[in-house]
């Protein structure tokens, strides 16, 4: 035993002055990229452009333009029709809020599929942002025994009520706190967004979200070209790559242009309400001030901006 020699672990060379690890890595890959381009391989070049892209918030207006143009070009080619990718900023003086009337929802799931179409979720493998939970009227909100897989001939089923759950757009969002790379954050209008190009797919946010609102692209997302919604946003409904997390953004690509989210417009019973919490004349403020509203898992202090209420 005594003749065992202990060799000290090799100490890595400190990175050259002025370079972070990431930059050093990128520089190394740049060299590779150079080799790839000289060998004429454009898909490697595309991958490289994506790899060296900065965090969304660090992009200069010029760089952002280049990035958006690159994405539009790639998506237009992939889907064979013109696709736009914008980066519409949050409006001044707007904090979005949502309300859902549990006494009206009939559990028809029109919202689920309206959302899939509008937000370019993968059809196969299947991704849904909205989960409609069926619960017993007798028991009230009882998440433990809720059933998302009900399949009746018609709804509402006798003695049941329905509670659609999706991202609650928390003011105090646990998901954005745990992300090790800062790929998800809350925007000034209160929408929690994800930079799909910065997400490393570690799924910490999925574990942190108390509402089960986040989805991971385990496989290559698949959207039929003729069903693709070609009006997209960088932080919203642009097609996502494999290996990243996504979730509801309250249709950021619509609401930042003043439109209602898609789910509000497809709900056949008008159970879904949306508006600006900072506008005292808005529908959402009327509901909060005049109806019995509650938020889901209030005790966690996540401060959702999604309010459930009983209108009847």
């Amino acid at each position, binding site marked *: 035993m005594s003749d065992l020699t202990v060799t000290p672990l090799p100490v890595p060379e400190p990175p050259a002055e002025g370079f972070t690890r990431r930059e050093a890595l990128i520089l190394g890959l740049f060299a590779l990229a150079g080799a790839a381009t000289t060998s004429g391989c454009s898909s490697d070049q595309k991958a490289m452009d994506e790899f060296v892209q900065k965090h969304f918030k660090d992009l200069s207006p010029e760089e952002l333009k280049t990035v958006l143009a690159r994405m539009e070009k790639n998506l237009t080619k992939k889907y064979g029709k013109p696709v736009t990718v914008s980066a519409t900023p949050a409006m001044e003086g707007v904090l979005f809020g949502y309300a859902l009337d549990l006494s009206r929802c009939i559990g028809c799931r029109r919202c689920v599929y309206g959302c899939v179409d509008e937000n370019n979720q993968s059809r196969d493998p299947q991704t849904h942002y909205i989960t409609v939970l069926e619960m017993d009227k007798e028991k009230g909100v009882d998440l433990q025994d809720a059933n998302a897989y009900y399949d009746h001939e018609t*709804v509402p089923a006798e003695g049941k009520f329905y509670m659609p759950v999706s991202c609650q757009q928390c003011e105090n969002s646990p998901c954005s706190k745990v992300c090790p790379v800062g790929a998800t954050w809350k925007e000034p209008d209160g929408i929690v967004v994800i930079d799909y190009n910065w997400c490393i797919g570690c799924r910490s946010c999925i574990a942190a979200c108390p509402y089960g609102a986040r989805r991971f692209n385990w496989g290559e997302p698949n959207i039929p070209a003729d069903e693709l919604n070609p009006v997209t946003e960088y932080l919203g409904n642009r097609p996502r790559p494999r290996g990243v997390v996504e979730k509801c953004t309250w249709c950021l690509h619509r609401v930042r242009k003043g439109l209602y989210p898609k789910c509000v417009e497809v709900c056949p019973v*008008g159970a879904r309400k949306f508006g600006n919490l900072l506008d005292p004349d808005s529908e959402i403020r*009327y509901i909060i001030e005049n109806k019995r509203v509650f938020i889901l898992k209030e005790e966690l202090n996540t401060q959702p901006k999604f309010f459930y209420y009983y209108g009847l």
Partner: protein
Amino acid sequence: MTGAKPAVGTVAASAKPAAALFPVAPPPFSDGVFPCSECHKPGDKVDRVPHKVEFHEDIVLHHDEKNRWCLDCHDAAHRDSLHLADGRLIPFTESYRLCGQCHGPTLRNWKAGEHGKRTGSWSGAKQYLLCPSCHSPHSPHFKPLKPKSPPLRQEAIK
């Protein structure tokens, strides 16, 4: 509610401001029934005693049918209009004023955007659905719907 909005139950002196205040989707007439004056002519004899009508058999009255019938809302002398309880005529595009005579709190919530459905812009121009767009005035209770398919179970996702 601000002073600019009409209070519940009051009827604007002229129909115009109310119409401008609530931009509504077109009334959901069944095919070919409107204008009613196509068939109902001004000189027609009208029996005002509630009775079963021979035509319009598709209409099943299931809306306080013991106490009301056609001419409580439809106007016998002005077939293309509705009338309020006090006899004032209103166009079909303002039917909410008629419904609101009995369903006051619902009308209040509808005006505020809580009841019913709006489409368009949360910040600007929007379209309201009229009461009959969702509730058949003759049988207003919601009909059950077939739900869309449930999500795949986790074990079914490859």
